[in-house]
């Protein structure tokens, strides 16, 4: 059995004068979860739509399991569960009927559907809505049904475009749990997101896209090590505005602080030169003891966020 793969070969898309995706060359192979990161408008959805033949490349080609999507969409998408944007489901259908439609079009037998549909609906916590019409559902509920539809054939490849869009925090956590669970199978998950925490939480690897260009693709641990150089940062929140003089004379003089950055009048980010848990604990008590109104002390965004900001800003 060959491992699942997705491949882009010089994938380019222009919308009039705008270059939405610029010669994307990417090959992902094996069972893993890959986060497709990038700011809004970076070209993530454009790329995913070309992987599913919803839009057509200006140049290049996309392959799923080495079958060209542009040449044979039916065969290419056969092994693939897809969730692009937040699709609407025919409002007169119930979730069960919508999934029956998906299953029937995919060639699943009645027996397989009878077995599988309650399972996937339960997985997305929509079991009790199985026979209610979709028309009255909220966006989040529809998104759960869409996820169920993508999971129904138990696909080798899952292409998910911001799958937690429209979900409440609990729903987002549940979907992440589902995705984590899916990683157990012989399955390749390619998931776009602009939520760094989501990608670092769920994915094994990350591809960063900005302004239509792929900036890098690697494992998250490699990215953190190589780009962020292990530097940690602490966000300190104050109950009252803190001036630069106080910052310079008191805060920045503390041991282990490499530099500081004011985020707003009540928030400062301290970048640490060391970064062990012990040094952070010490710093916590020192900042508290300064009497400058420090009320929040929180580890800053992950290394991935540092990388993201650095790389995207460099691209801009």
């Amino acid at each position: 059995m060959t491992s699942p793969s997705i491949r882009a070969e010089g994938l380019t898309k222009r919308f009039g004068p705008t270059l939405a995706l610029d010669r994307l060359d990417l090959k992902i192979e094996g069972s893993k979860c890959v986060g497709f990161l990038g700011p809004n408008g970076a070209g993530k959805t454009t790329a995913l739509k070309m992987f599913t033949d919803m839009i057509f490349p200006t140049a290049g080609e996309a392959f799923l399991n080495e079958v060209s999507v542009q040449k044979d969409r039916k065969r290419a998408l056969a092994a693939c569960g897809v969730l692009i944007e937040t699709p609407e489901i025919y409002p007169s259908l119930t979730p069960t009927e919508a999934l029956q439609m998906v299953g029937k079009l995919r060639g699943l037998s009645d027996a397989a559907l009878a077995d599988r549909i309650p399972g996937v609906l339960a997985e997305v916590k929509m079991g009790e809505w199985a026979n209610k019409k979709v028309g009255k559902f909220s966006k989040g509920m529809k998104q759960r049904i869409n996820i169920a539809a993508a999971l129904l054939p138990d696909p080798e490849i899952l292409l998910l475009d911001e799958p937690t869009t429209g979900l409440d925090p609990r729903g987002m956590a549940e979907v992440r749990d589902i995705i984590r669970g899916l990683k157990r199978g012989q399955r390749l998950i390619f998931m776009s997101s602009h939520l760094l925490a989501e990608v670092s939480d769920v994915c094994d690897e990350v591809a960063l896209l900005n302004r239509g260009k792929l900036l890098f693709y690697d494992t998250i641990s490699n990215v953190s090590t190589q780009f962020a150089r292990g530097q940690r940062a602490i966000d300190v929140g104050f109950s009252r505005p803190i001036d630069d003089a106080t910052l310079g004379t008191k805060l920045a003089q503390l041991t282990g602080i490499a530099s500081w950055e004011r985020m707003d009048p009540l928030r400062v980010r301290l970048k640490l030169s060391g970064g062990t848990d012990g040094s952070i604990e010490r710093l916590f008590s020192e900042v508290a003891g300064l009497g400058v109104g420090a009320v929040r002390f929180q580890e800053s965004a992950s290394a991935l966020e540092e990388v993201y900001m650095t790389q995207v800003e460099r691209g801009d």
Partner: protein
Amino acid sequence: MVANPVASSSVAAGPQGGGRTAIAATLPGTLDQIVRLTRFQFRDYLRSRRFILMFAIVGVIGLILTSVVGYFRPAFISDPLAFYGSLWGGGVPFVVVLAAVIYGADAIAGEFQNKTGYFLMGLPIRRITVYTGKFIAAFLASLAAVALFAAILVANGAYYLGGNALPWQLGESFILAVVYLLAVLAAAMMFSSMFKTSSYATLLVALLFLIGFSLLQAVVSGLANITPWFVITYANTIIGGVLSNSCENQPGMHTCKVGGGPGGGFSITVNNATIPEGAAIMIAYFLLTAVAGIFLFEREEFS
């Protein structure tokens, strides 16, 4: 770290085991998928408000015709051909256009506007399958409306003409109305493929088929003196024509005497489409617009 030209990685992810369940599925062939999709689309139509709306409109038209005929008792109620020629021949082209507007005009545009297309297009299914499945479902729903209209008129006919007074030409006319339905629906779906907003497609189809083609036909034949063989409203006259016993409405080109009395009346030459000609024009419309519609949908982007 890997960057362009080909970024790749082969790091294996999480633990194996627990894996994917084995689900036996053989991707159905295109025809099979068309049948499956049609079934769901038609079910969607049956449950939709537009289906109730269409039936209500046909019911109201039937009610008006029944009331008018009942109140005025026109002369044609004693002649089966004239009865069906006037009521069916005059009414069914409108019912067909209405059905095409309601079911066909937003069939494709609605997939974009309502974003239901994103649900379908992620599936391993050809675009032509989606288009054909939607066409057949819209055709069946429209046919139900046309059949309802026919049933109302036959019930009226049974009342005025007796139970056995069903001219065979009504069957011929029904078949021609179905061919007209195919043509108008295919054209409606072609226009639907041009837009991503249902209202534009609906407006265009309604304007074209209710006013545009008739106007074009009048201009072409009246002002330019050209036989408007390329206009579908020229062709659809055969639907009523096969039932008509009045010279002016019968298919083909011929001279009719109009009027009478002391002046002796006058002769006019009418140029109606013949049955083969009308049928050929409608079939040509169906084929050309169906191919054009599929061509457009194959190139439409879900952007």
